[in-house]
């Protein structure tokens, strides 16, 4: 009966315009709709599938401002059992290392966990480093970029897929897993799941609750500083082909030039 912790993150919807705040180059959270990151939905789904097959409990954990509650509710409405929300204004502008430290402490409040599941990278920061840092801080094995996960009482097997190819990993529990996009198709929350979510326990913690001092976190204490930022230039206009009976071969020529065929 595995006890699973899923890391989730609220991010700006990829459909909306995403911006950095001009004052301090941190994420402008007000400018976009906030959603549970899609890769985290897959992480929650994987945890729920394991729970449905083997029993156990699923706890979602997030570090984020107050409104990240919405992302927690989404995960709870999908079927997770309870949540831990670390919310503290001093975390504004925290870098990846600080975030990993806070997550590691917060995971310590979940008694007897067997497995930690995260997405491989968020769609906003795209750091992709949290799972590895967390494993290091907790002294646990890391099995990243999973496209398939199997666990029994004491060990976990992962099929790992990256651009370089596939590898087959095995480690003893407890362990940290990160999942890739091919892992599963996340479920939609059912109406009953949505109604049940509001009754599920959410523990809200500050960094003081975790024994972390405000001088260790936040923008001013980050290991690196963003000095400047500029929006991505708009995509260049595509190439138009007028079909004069040879449209098909012109498209084929283009695809060949891009090495797509």
């Amino acid at each position, binding site marked *: 009966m595995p006890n699973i912790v899923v890391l989730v993150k609220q991010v700006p919807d990829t459909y909306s315009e995403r911006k950095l705040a001009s004052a301090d180059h941190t994420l402008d959270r007000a400018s976009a709709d906030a959603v549970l990151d899609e890769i985290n939905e897959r992480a929650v789904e994987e945890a729920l599938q394991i729970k449905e097959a083997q029993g156990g409990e699923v706890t979602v954990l997030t570090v984020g401002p107050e409104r990240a509650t919405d992302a927690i509710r989404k995960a709870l409405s999908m079927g997770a059992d309870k949540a831990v929300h670390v919310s503290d204004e001093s975390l504004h502008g925290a870098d990846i290392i600080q975030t990993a430290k806070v997550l590691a402490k917060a995971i310590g409040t979940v008694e007897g966990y067997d497995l930690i599941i995260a997405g491989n990278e968020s769609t906003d920061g795209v750091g992709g480093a949290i799972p590895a840092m967390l494993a290091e801080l907790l002294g646990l094995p890391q099995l990243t970029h999973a496209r398939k996960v199997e666990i029994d009482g004491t060990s976990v097997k992962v099929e790992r897929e990256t651009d370089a190819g596939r590898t087959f990993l095995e480690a003893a529990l407890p362990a940290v897993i990160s999942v890739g996009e091919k892992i599963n198709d996340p479920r*939609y929350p059912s*109406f009953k799941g*949505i109604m049940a979510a509001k009754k599920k326990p959410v523990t809200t913690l500050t960094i003081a609750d975790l024994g972390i001092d405000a001088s260790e976190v936040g923008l001013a204490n980050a290991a690196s500083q963003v000095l400047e930022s500029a929006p991505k230039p708009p995509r260049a206009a595509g190439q138009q082909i007028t079909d004069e009976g040879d449209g098909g071969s012109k498209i084929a020529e283009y695809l060949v030039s891009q090495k797509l065929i």
Partner: protein
Amino acid sequence: MNFVESDERLALRKAVSDLGRRYGHDYYITKAREGAHTTELWQEAGKLGYLGVNVPEEYGGGGGGIGDLAAVCEELSAAGCPLLMMVVSPAICATIIARFGTDAQKREWLPRFADGSVVMAFGITEPDAGSNSHKIVTTGRRDGGDWVLSGQKVFISGVDGADAVLIVGRTEDARTGRLKPALYIVPTDAKGFTWQKIDMDMISPDRQYTLFLDDVRLPADALVGSEDAALAQLFAGLNPERIMAASFATGIGRLAMNKATEYAKTRTVWGTPIGAHQGLAHPLADAHINIELARLMTQKAAALYDAGNDMAAGEAANMAKYAAGEAAAKAADQALQTHGGNGMASEYGLGALVLAARVGRIAPVSREMILNFVAQHSLGLPKSY
């Protein structure tokens, strides 16, 4: 007073919208043009409990209200998939059975409404009576323990994909000998029950039928609830129908507005997106305001109905249906206009939307009948008929 929906209602809207957008308007139109049904979407929404949000929890439903069901209907419409049978099966039929059915009828039907595994059509309109329940001639007579039902119905939606039809008929009052309304559950495979498709210019996977009931023999328990309470039962189902029709229409209006604004932002003539011109921007803003007003009235009607205030809900539901039909028709027309010649091209699906939105002015009750109702009941004006 609260003008904001609950977190759960908003989460439901988001979840349904995500599901609906995965199917989308192209899916809906393709199924309609192929003569097929939107069965995959219906079943998936059913399994997630979205089609049974209003069915009592003890029968496996969501235990919510018509407000929840209306939110589901509106979001699917806005995502491009207006499921007409939602107005009928869970809103009218499940409501009537849940409120007035016998225990056996509840046990038989409600769990299947809860997960959408049953579809029940609703047959009230007749060629010579319209929806006037006092002029209905479809009649059930007792024969031993059975009922024998005869008559004809017209413009009945989705019978071809339904398991049964809830037929509004009449039966003879034992004491007075006068005919009074009675509701019968007629399985679509009952002997003597046939139907014929009515060719429509609408592009919808939920088609319209004429029904023929030719001495259809039904068991005693085909009669819904009590023989003496049928009029109250009928009206219990019609307020949800109007609320759902309003949501169906505002959803279509939102879909039209999305298409229109997307086009107006991206279509550029002489270096300017056409949406920058007030000739297009103002009518779209006006259409948006009217849709939002209709949505507000629809939510009010649903809140009154769910609070058990049937009388006040009746007036609000009629007004909401009227406002939504008008708002949707105008929004669809303006969306088509915004697209210029492309508005008439099948690829953009706006021609289909204009006619789909236009339904809201006619069904389930015409805007003229609603104006009559408001004139008489809200304003106390004399009756013309």
